[in-house]
């Protein structure tokens, strides 16, 4: 039985083991699960490991690491074995965490209200007024229901004697609840039978309670409350979790720029106008919430938000300013605060800590440094913990000097010994390995008091580290609390979906999402156009060798006119031209370089990533990887050519995806409009330049023009001879069956803009219609090969002028769309000023 499985599992002398007792016997709450594990065959275990890996991939569970050089998402690391806790033990934990949540809420109410504890000397003023997290503008604000703390998390650890201790409090915007939910969804599917038989308590009701309570307290009068989840954006390390929670709670995921304060009311900018927001569940830090009253240098916040809160027009959860009490220095004062504010004894002890601002604590810390962990008193200091035991004599002396210089800045904490639990060391069959674990437990405010999520995020320490931290990218586990009264359903999110809950179109599609899709379309097309043009020149350069070919000169001239190559393009020596071309591809500092446009494409795509499939994202990421890989290295022309081919391939895959796989909503509409506008501008500009270029009258120029317009195959199929100007112009200007013709773009734009015409006003579409009619009425006869040169010349200039008008209509249309529909994502125009 468990013998074999456990034979290699080392017992610990100095830590509590969650699975086995000191005698090596499996604890009662683990018995059923361990027995199942022990009887599993190696194949079965491999299969379960596969399920785990696949589900992490399919769900796209990821964690961004700031310091990751690629800035890329890293797959979430999840151990399949849950931490198991019995019902009785859990009741104690839940009661203690709930009490602590109540205490911290009362503490916030006091600090931001009458400040009784400060007056009575129960809190050192330095820990409040000396803390940058104390926000003066929030003093005196009483939030709806008196609730500051809607979602609270406690980091717990179990000491060798089996008692639980609080290691840290998360009160600002606790992270990880979404990961706990994701872990549960995955692990419950890896061990479905055990999960069912052990009657594991469900997490679903917790999120329901959180959301219902926000709705309950949201100041919405008779209106249906609109609750949004505010994220700092895709660069944040837990963005995945924000998106995940938003999806599961059914809340629009918004960034600061999606919201606006008018008067004292907060609104969400949607495509169909402003919609009032009643509650904001925020993942944005306190001081970034409002650049008017809080940090002025914040580009993230929402000017006027604090006043909207003060006026009682919107609920912000957690209340702005609640980050203050995360300070570890406070924990020593909480037992007294608990007696003073609640008249109760604090149920769960916190790891002993000493704020060095008290002279006695400073002396204690200096004397016993080797047994303590030294941390900054205020989280904003972002000081890495210093382990006294790691310091040599000189290091200790230096540390003591720092402590004495500014004692108020430091807190000493007793070294925490985490308990250990088995982790799966699965590579060669099933082997269990003990790892240190800490448990993050969540509590949510409800009108009936705090409810505690039965379970939580179990964080696993690395084999040698004494710090469990997600920012370092640790492993995590699900936590199973036994004794669920009913058979918990696997599905967690909201209850059943009725007909009335069906969502067909994105009613709350934010203007930002739409704007990003529009720019995604434009950049995708811009990359496509530039890559095609550069490929045309580069391939000709390779063919020409050392010779000068007229077609190469004219193509390079056009690149110069469009800003892709420096002046004199056509007359450069071959080596110089090649260098200039490589720069136009790879050197982001050049304003029109392809690399920059690819970067911008990815950036706008990242904002709306949930709308793209993994495959397409992967294709884009490869381009990015190609670019970063090329940094500084010598690239030859053939490599560059291969890269351009890949860009064009990825671009056509994206175009196909937009046509085929995207839901027909306004987001897709704007993506396609973006592509069409960009292509129209490019074609009109490129053609106008071409018609004006002297060098483009040379032999071979029409051929490359057709190549740039991606129309050479159609041309050859139709005419099968050396390209001539008249049929070429017909094909890439007038032929509305050619997706790369000017008229095709005009007609397509008119069609896609039609549904918007009412709001946009007719002028935008009208100008396009006039352009289209003008082009269609064009007489191509003067372009015939046998026309007198004077006539051709005049006709070229006339058509070029007409194309200039088309390009400016496209430009104007883009401006109009931006003004009417967009939030100006890239707007650097917001300024905070003091006079």
């Amino acid at each position, binding site marked *: 039985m468990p013998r074999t499985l456990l034979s290699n599992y080392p017992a610990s002398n100095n830590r509590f083991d969650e699975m086995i007792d000191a005698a090596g016997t499996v604890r009662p709450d683990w018995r059923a699960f361990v027995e199942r594990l022990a009887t599993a065959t190696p194949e079965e275990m491999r299969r379960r490991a596969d399920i785990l890996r696949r589900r992490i991939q399919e769900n796209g569970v990821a964690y961004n690491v700031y310091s990751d050089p690629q800035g890329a998402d890293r797959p979430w690391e999840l151990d399949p074995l849950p931490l198991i806790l019995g019902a009785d033990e859990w009741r104690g934990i839940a009661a203690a965490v709930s009490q602590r949540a109540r205490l911290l809420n009362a503490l916030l109410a006091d600090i931001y209200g009458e400040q009784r504890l400060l007056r009575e*000397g129960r809190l050192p003023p330095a820990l409040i007024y000396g803390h940058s997290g104390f926000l003066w503008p929030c003093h005196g604000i009483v939030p709806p229901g008196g609730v500051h703390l809607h979602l609270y998390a406690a980091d717990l650890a179990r000491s060798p004697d089996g008692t639980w201790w609080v290691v840290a409090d998360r009160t600002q915007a606790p992270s990880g609840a979404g990961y706990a939910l994701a872990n549960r969804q995955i692990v419950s599917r890896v061990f479905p039978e055990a999960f069912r038989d052990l009657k594991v308590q469900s997490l679903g009701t917790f999120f329901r309670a959180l959301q219902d309570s926000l709705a309950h307290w949201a100041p919405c009068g008779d209106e249906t409350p609109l609750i949004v989840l505010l994220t700092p954006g895709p660069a944040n390390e837990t963005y995945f979790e924000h998106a995940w929670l938003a999806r599961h709670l059914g809340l629009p995921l918004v960034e600061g720029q999606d919201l*606006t304060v*008018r008067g004292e009311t907060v609104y969400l900018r949607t495509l169909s106008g402003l919609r009032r927001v009643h509650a904001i569940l925020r993942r944005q830090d306190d001081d970034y919430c409002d650049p*008017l009253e809080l940090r002025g240098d914040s580009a993230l916040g929402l000017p006027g938000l604090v006043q909207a809160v003060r006026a009682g027009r919107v609920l912000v959860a957690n209340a702005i300013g609640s980050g203050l009490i995360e300070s570890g220095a406070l924990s020593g004062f909480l037992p007294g605060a608990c007696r003073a504010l609640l008249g109760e004894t604090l149920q769960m002890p916190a790891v002993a800590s000493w704020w060095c601002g008290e002279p006695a604590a400073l002396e204690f810390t200096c004397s016993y440094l080797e047994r303590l962990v030294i941390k900054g008193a205020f989280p904003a200091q972002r000081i890495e913990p210093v382990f006294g035991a790691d310091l040599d004599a000189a290091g200790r002396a230096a540390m003591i000097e720092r402590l004495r210089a500014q004692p108020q800045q430091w807190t000493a904490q007793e070294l925490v010994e985490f308990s250990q639990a088995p982790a799966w060391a699965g590579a060669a069959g099933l082997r269990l390995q003990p790892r240190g674990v800490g448990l993050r437990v969540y509590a949510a405010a409800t009108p009936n008091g705090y409810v505690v999520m039965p379970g939580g995020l179990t964080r696993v320490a690395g084999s040698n580290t004494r710090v469990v931290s997600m920012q370092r990218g640790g492993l995590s586990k699900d936590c199973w609390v036994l004794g669920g009264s009913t058979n918990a359903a696997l599905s967690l999110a909201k209850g059943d979906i009725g007909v009335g809950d069906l969502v067909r179109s994105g009613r709350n599609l934010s203007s930002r999402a739409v704007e990003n899709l529009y720019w995604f379309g434009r950049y995708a097309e811009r990359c496509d156009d530039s890559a095609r043009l550069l490929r045309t020149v580069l391939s000709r350069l390779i063919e020409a060798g050392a010779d000068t070919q007229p077609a190469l000169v004219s193509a390079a001239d056009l690149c110069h006119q469009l800003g892709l190559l420096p002046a004199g393009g056509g007359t450069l020596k071959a080596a110089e031209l090649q260098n200039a071309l490589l720069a136009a591809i790879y050197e982001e500092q050049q304003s029109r370089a392809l690399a920059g446009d690819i970067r911008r494409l990815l950036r706008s795509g990242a904002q709306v990533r949930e709308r793209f499939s993994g495959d397409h994202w992967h294709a884009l990421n490869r381009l990015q990887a190609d670019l970063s890989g090329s940094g500084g290295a010598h690239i030859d022309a053939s490599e560059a050519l291969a890269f351009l081919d890949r860009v064009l391939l990825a671009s056509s895959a994206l175009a196909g995806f937009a046509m085929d796989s995207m839901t027909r909503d306004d987001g897709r509409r704007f993506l396609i409009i973006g592509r069409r506008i960009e292509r129209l501008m490019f074609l009109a500009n490129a053609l106008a330049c071409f018609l004006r270029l002297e060098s483009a009258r040379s032999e071979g120029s029409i051929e490359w023009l057709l190549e740039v317009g991606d129309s050479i195959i159609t041309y050859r199929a139709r005419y099968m001879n050396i390209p001539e100007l008249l049929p070429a112009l017909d094909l890439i200007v007038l032929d509305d069956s050619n997706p790369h013709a000017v008229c095709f773009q005009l007609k397509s734009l008119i069609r896609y803009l039609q549904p918007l015409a009412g709001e946009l006003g007719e002028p935008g579409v009208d100008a396009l219609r006039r352009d289209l009619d003008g082009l269609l009425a064009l007489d191509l006869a003067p372009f015939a090969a046998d026309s007198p040169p004077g006539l051709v010349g005049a006709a070229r200039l006339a058509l070029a002028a007409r194309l200039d008008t088309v390009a400016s209509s496209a430009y104007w249309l883009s401006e109009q769309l931006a003004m009417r529909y967009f939030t100006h994502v890239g707007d650097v125009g917001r300024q905070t000023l003091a006079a």
Partner: protein
Amino acid sequence: MLSTLLYHVVHETRYAYSVPVSLSRQLLHLTPRDTLWQNCRSHRLFVEPLPTCQRERIDALGNLVNEFAIEAPHQFLHVRAESVVALIPRSGGSLQPGSGDWLAASPSWEDVSRTLAYHGTPAQPEVSCFQFESPAVEVGRDFADFASHSFLPGRPLLQSAYALMQRIFDEFDFDPEATTVSTPVREVLQRRRGVCQDFAHLMLACLRSLGLSARYVSGYLLTQPPPGEPRLIGADASHAWVSVFCPKFGWVDFDPTNSMLPTHEHVTLAWGRDFTDVSPMRGVILGGGEQQLDVAVTVTPLTTDSSGEEGTEHAFQ
């Protein structure tokens, strides 16, 4: 004892933007607050273009705040705050021996610093909230070192503060070109030049580095035109000084820019931990492009106290 003095203060701020501003929110600390020695007899605020919404309130530090938003595109902003303020002169001071130096009667600065330290006994949040670092005022050993030449062992707190004020006045150059509103106070200490705001921040940094409590005062100073010349309209400016807490004495003002104790020519607008709490006008705008800012302050003494019966009036239009 001098009788009540009346001042007429006009503070005009004009922004001209090169590109229209579509959304503007502004927070004003332009209403003189009432104090033991100051009474704001009337206050009027004119804003153009007309705000979409506006509100008057008292902030957490007791200052009067006006907040407004303009939600229609505009290319200029004009804010004119006009106040009539009555002052009761306070006693000045000097360190001249035998001149009835009340500063010398204050407790030693070490005693005050010890009293303000945390002992787990009842405290006054109104005092301790000005005792620590704030966004524009750092604390540190370098500030304490600089102050130690004035804060000699056992010296009375107010005498020490007076000496520190004089030292800043003597050793620092007034130089509007040297700093901006965001110059860190540590740089001011190193470069020995700045404007009133910098000197106030520096003095605060020194005092707080010694464990003392001191606040930033924003206001105006009546400037005297050169003999024989008329008072120029708009030639004055916003001013700033500091106020030090001393047990039994309360809050005592020091003006390091002029090395003087404010008596009857300093009009108080608001106080806070530093400039960021009480900047006269702070705003966030969307758009605007390049902008041109003109600030004009005029403080005029009114000869007679004719408005004594009027009572306090606050208008906001």
